């Protein structure tokens, strides 16, 4: 019972971050901020949802000798989480870098001073 509640809380938290990522992708003004919303929100929410799945697997756990197969499932879920934890931020970074090299201008508010606008490579 308690295990189910914990897993539901984790999955719901993950879904909230998913929602945040989706809203961010639509609402943020330029390429970089949109990627930041997608990258961060996606990674954390996937991890939370997978962790929720892993916790949910524990509901039938009785003893190690009887239910070690459950631990195997949990191990696989954790392996997927680790994979996402490494690859998702890297892909976001690679996309950002590709955008920067492709001279995509960051959007900067008029009344704020920021060196990013000057640093960005100029389009020919």
């Amino acid at each position: 019972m308690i295990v189910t509640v914990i897993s539901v809380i984790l999955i719901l938290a993950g879904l909230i971050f998913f929602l945040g990522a989706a809203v961010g992708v639509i609402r943020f003004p330029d390429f970089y901020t949109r990627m930041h919303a997608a990258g961060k929100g996606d990674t954390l929410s996937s991890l939370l949802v997978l962790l929720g799945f892993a916790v949910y697997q524990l509901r039938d756990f009785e003893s190690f000798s009887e239910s070690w197969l459950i631990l195997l499932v949990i191990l696989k879920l954790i392996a997927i989480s680790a994979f996402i934890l490494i690859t998702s931020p890297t892909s976001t970074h690679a996309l950002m870098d590709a955008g920067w090299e492709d001279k995509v201008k960051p959007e900067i508010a008029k009344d704020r001073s920021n060196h990013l606008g000057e640093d960005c490579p100029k389009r020919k």
Partner: protein
Amino acid sequence: MITKVLATLAVVITGAILLYGTADFPAFGDPNSPASAGVEGGAPSISQYYITKSYDDTKVPNLVTSVLADYRGYDTMFETVVVFAAGMAIFAILRVFREDDDGVPNATHSNGNSFTDGDHSRIIVGTTVRIVVPVIQLFSLYVVAHGHHSPGGGFQGGVILGASFIILALATDLETALSRFSEKSYFALAAIGILIYAGFGVLCQVLGSDFLDYGVLQKIFLTDGPEMARSHSMLGVEVGVAFTVTGIMFAIYANLSSRGTLKSGL
């Protein structure tokens, strides 16, 4: 203008005929369709046969694999040949051998550690790739080897294995990936894959049975009956398929990304 009208007409007519043809199909999942229920007083249902008998015949729990690699092995062999032919077509169309035709401006290629040379971005991506690529390759072998027990098999595992080399080429450059998996070796691998598959078929003929009738291979695998021989042979042909798909996946990427020069692609 007139050609466009004619082409549109041809497309519309063909599409209409195809849509008209689908009307004669049984509904999706209809248990009374001839494929599922058989013909009354005639042929028994082939689906029922696969569902009820395939495990007894082949000792392979994954029904899809047993149909794909055993009952319809001939079909799958030529699917693999189609993949191979696609790679050959890419080679024939795109590959250029002239030295002066670079296609893309020369990227500076250092002889040092190409993973971490240069600016920060290559360090991050390169390190991640170094961590991730071995895991991907191990997982692809798992997918190939487990094809007859769980979802997976030669095509999927081969695609994953080929993709791992593509990731390597994306994160560093094409030369680095080609130094590990050269043009000679990927086309050789692709050809060997088909040879393995067809070799299993010919081996069955040599032992006095039909092409790709794996049951007779129990004389070689020394199994208790033809069932386990069929199971082992399925693994064998899956490995052949994986070889071909791996080679051709990377061949297509290497040729497309460098416009056939195999020099400093993306």
